[in-house]
C-alpha cells in the first residue's frame, strides 16, 4: 500500500510541478508528529505550536528567498547575516521609539541594503572576485563598521512597528503573510519575467547567456541587490520582535549559512540555474519543524545541531543520487 501511495504522491508532484523537497517536508512533518506523540506531549499539531513554528521560520524564510536569487545566478551571499545586524541596529537607532521616524528609518535601511547589494554584485560581476570571498569580505567590513559604532542594544522601535513581528490579521500572524507574499512575488518574478528567465540563463551558463546578448553583469548585480533587500526585510522583522537591535542579532541567528542550507535543501543547485523559491520555502519549513520538534522533545542543543547537520546532508545527498539515477 505504501508503495502505491508513494507512486501516487510522485505523479501528483509531477503534475503540480512541486519540487521534490516537498516529499521530504511531508516525511519530516509526519516523523515529527509521530515522535512527538510517542516521546513528547503530543501537542505538536496544536494550532498554537504550528503557528509559532511558522513564525519562527519567517526571519530565515525571507532572507532565504533572496539567497535563492543569488544562488540561481550561481553566486552566493555570505554578507546577509551582517546586513541583518546592521539593519536591526540602524532601524532601532534611527527610530528611537518614535513612530514618526519609522518611514525615514525604513527608507534608510533599505537604502543601505541596496548599496550593499550593489557593492556585492559589482565586486562579483565586474571584478570577477569569487562570490564567497567577495561577500564574506563585504560582510566583515559591515561587521567592523557596526562594532566600531555600537556595542550593545541601541534605541528601540516604537510599539506600532512591532505589529510587523507580533500583529495578526484575524487569526493569521502578519509575519506569515509577509513571508508568503515574499515567496509568491519571488516565484512570479522567477517564472514570469524576463529578469527571471535571464537569471536562470546566467546561472545555467554565463557564456551561452553572453552569446545570446544578455547583459549578464546586470542580472548578477540585480540578484545581489534583491538578496540584500530581503536581508533588510529580515532585519526589520527581527528588530520588530526584539524591540531593539544589537550588533550580534544577525550573526547569532546564523542567517548566512542557514539561508544557504535552506536554499540547497529546497533543491536549488549550488552551481546555479536550477531550482526556485517554492522549494526554498519547503527547506525553511523543514528547519522550522525540526527546531519545534527538538524543543518539544527537549533535545539537547548540541545534539540538535548534530541532527540538523545530518539531515541537511541527507537531503542534499538524496538529490544527487536521484539525478545520478536519472542520468544512468
Amino acid at each position, binding site marked *: 500500500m505504501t508503495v502505491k501511495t508513494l507512486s501516487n504522491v510522485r505523479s501528483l508532484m509531477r503534475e503540480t510541478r512541486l519540487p521534490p523537497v516537498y516529499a521530504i517536508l511531508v516525511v519530516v512533518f509526519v516523523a515529527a508528529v509521530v515522535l512527538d506523540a510517542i516521546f513528547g506531549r503530543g501537542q505538536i499539531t496544536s494550532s498554537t505550536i504550528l503557528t509559532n513554528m511558522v513564525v519562527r521560520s519567517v526571519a530565515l524564510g525571507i532572507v532565504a528567498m533572496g539567497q535563492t536569487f543569488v544562488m540561481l545566478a550561481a553566486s552566493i551571499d555570505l554578507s546577509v547575516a551582517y546586513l541583518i545586524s546592521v539593519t536591526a541596529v540602524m532601524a532601532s537607532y534611527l527610530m528611537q521609539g518614535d513612530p514618526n521616524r519609522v518611514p525615514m528609518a525604513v527608507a534608510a535601511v533599505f537604502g543601505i541594503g541596496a548599496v550593499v547589494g550593489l557593492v556585492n554584485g559589482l565586486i562579483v560581476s565586474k571584478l570577477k572576485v569569487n562570490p564567497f570571498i567577495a561577500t564574506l569580505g563585504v560582510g566583515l567590513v559591515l561587521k567592523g563598521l557596526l562594532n566600531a559604532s555600537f556595542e550593545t542594544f541601541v534605541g528601540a522601535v516604537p510599539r506600532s512597528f512591532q505589529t510587523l513581528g507580533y500583529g495578526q490579521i484575524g487569526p493569521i500572524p502578519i509575519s506569515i503573510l509577509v513571508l508568503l507574499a515574499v515567496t509568491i512575488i519571488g516565484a512570479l518574478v522567477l517564472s514570469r*519575467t524576463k529578469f527571471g528567465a535571464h537569471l536562470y540563463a546566467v546561472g545555467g551558463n554565463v557564456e551561452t547567456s553572453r552569446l545570446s546578448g544578455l547583459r549578464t553583469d546586470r542580472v548578477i548585480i540585480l540578484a545581489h541587490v534583491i538578496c540584500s533587500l530581503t536581508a533588510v526585510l529580515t532585519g526589520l522583522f527581527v528588530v520588530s520582535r526584539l524591540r531593539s537591535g544589537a550588533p550580534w542579532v544577525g550573526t547569532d541567528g546564523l542567517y548566512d549559512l542557514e539561508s544557504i542550507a535552506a536554499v540547497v535543501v529546497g533543491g536549488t543547485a549550488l552551481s546555479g*540555474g536550477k531550482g526556485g523559491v517554492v522549494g526554498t520555502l519547503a527547506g525553511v519549513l523543514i528547519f522550522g519543524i525540526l527546531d519545534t520538534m527538538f524543543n518539544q522533545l527537549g533535545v539537547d542543543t548540541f545534539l540538535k545541531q548534530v541532527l540538523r547537520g545530518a539531515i541537511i546532508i541527507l537531503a542534499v545527498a538524496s538529490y544527487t543520487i536521484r539525478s545520478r539515477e536519472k542520468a544512468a
Partner: protein
Amino acid sequence: MANAQLPILEARNITKRFPGVVALNDVSIQFMPGEVHAVVGENGAGKSTLMKLLAGAYTPDEGELFFQGSSISFNHPREAQEVGISIIYQEFNLLPERTVAQNIFLGREPSRYGVVDQRQLMRQTQAVLQRVGAETMISPDAEVKTLSIAQQQLVEIAKALSFDSKVLIMDEPTAALATHEVEILTRLIHKLIANGMAVIFISHRFTEVFDLAKMITVLKDGQHVATVAADAATPSQVITMMVGRELDQYFPELARADEIGAVALEVVNGSNAKLHDISLKLRAGEIVGVSGLQGSGRTELAQAIFGVEPFTSGRILVKGTERPIKTPKAAINLRMGFVTEDRKAEGIFPNQPLNDNILAPVRALQALLRRIKRFGTAEKPQLVLELVQQVDVRTPSIQQEVQYLSGGNQQKVVLAKWLASTCDILIFDEPTRGIDVDAKASIHEMIRDLAQAGTAVLMISSELPEVIGMSDRIVVMWDGRISGELPAGAGEEAIMHLATGHQESHRTAVPEPRGEGTLEL
C-alpha cells in the same frame, strides 16, 4: 535575380594571428546564397578560426569581410547574428535546464513591462520549429536536457532561423548524429538552401561533404589551398590537397606470426549492465582492433576491462591467472594502461605541467615499482625528457601546463604517461580522434612499436581505415556484444555487416551503410 550572382558573404585577404602562430594567412573565400559550402582541412588548418571570424567571435588582424557586397566588421557574435550570420558550434550553446522556447528566444522574449508573454512565446517558438520541420518532434516547453543530440541540434538551427539568418555556419554538424539523424539534417539543409540561405560547414566526414556541398574549400596550415566544385573533384583528390600525400602510406606493418606471444589478457563471459557475454583473448605483441558503431559498447568494454565500470559477472585472466579487476588501480597494478577517448575529462590534468602528467601513474605505483626495482629513480626528469622525445610532443618545456598544448600533443602526453609506467597491456580508446594527420601517423607507429616490444594492445576506433590498417585481429561489437571476429585485412564491408548486427550469411542482402564513413579522416 542579379543578386544571386553576388556572394552573400566574402572573406578578402583575411589574416589572423595568435601568439606564436598564424592561424589564417591571407585567406579569401566567397560564399554564395543558396549553396552549401564545405570547409575541410586537417586539425589546426584554421577551419575553426575562419568560422569564428565569419561569426564575429574573432576580429581579423588583416583583411576584410563583406556582407552582401559591403564591408562589415563585428565586435561581438551578437552583431553578426543581427545582420543574419548564425553559427552553431560543435558544443551546443543551449541551457539544458530551460525549455526549448526559453532557449530559442533567450534575451528576446516577447514581453510587456518585463513580464514574458507566454502565449506569444509559445506561438513564435512553434512557428520557428515548423520552419525546421520539427514541430511534431519537439515541444516548445520541453526542457532541452530531455532532448536527443539531434533534436538539440534542430533547436539550435531553429534558434538561428529565428534571427532570420541568411548565412548559417555549422561546426561538424554530423559528428554526434546517427545515420538516420544525418538524413533529417540533410533534408533540412536542402530546404534551407532552397530558400536562398548560404550554409557553411566544417566536416571530417567526406561522405557528407560530397553529398551536401556544392563547393569545397580546402585549408592547410592556415593557407587557402583551393576552392573546388564538389562534382569536379574526388574525395582522394581533396584528401591529397589537405595532406599532400596518399592515404595508404599511413600504417605501419602488421605483426609477423613469430612476434605474437602468449595470451596476456583473457575475458571469459564478462557481463555488466551494458555488456553481455564478452569473451576475448589478447596476446602479447598483438594489436586487436575493436570496431563498432556509436553506442555498441566499445568504450564500455575498455572501461570494464580497466575496472572503471567493472564486469559484474564472468572472469578476467591476466597471463593465465584469474584476477578480479574492480578498480582502475587494480588494473594498473596488473600493468595495464588505458589511453582514454575523452582526453580532457579522463586522460590529462590540464592545469598541471607535462612532467607531472606523465609521472602520475608512475607515482601511483611507486611503492610497487620500488619493490620490483625497475624504476627505483622514477622521478628523474631524464625519463620524462626521453619519453617526450620518443612520442614527439611539441612543447617548450616539460614544465608547460598541458592545457596549453594542442589536441594532438595532449594525446601524445596521455600516451607518454602510460609508456612511463611500462605497461604489459595497453587499451587505446580512439587514439587519434581529432588530431592531425601527421600526429596520427606518428601515434600509429608508436602503437606498433609498443606491440613489437611485447605489449598486448587493444585499440578501439570508430575509424574503419584505422582499425583495418592497424589491427592484427578485429573484434566487432554490436549492442553490447561481440558480434564477430575478423582476421587482419578484413574489408570495411565485412566489419560494417557485423557492426550493424547482420550475420555474415546475410551479407549480400545488406546495402553498404552510410554515415559511419568509410572516408572519415
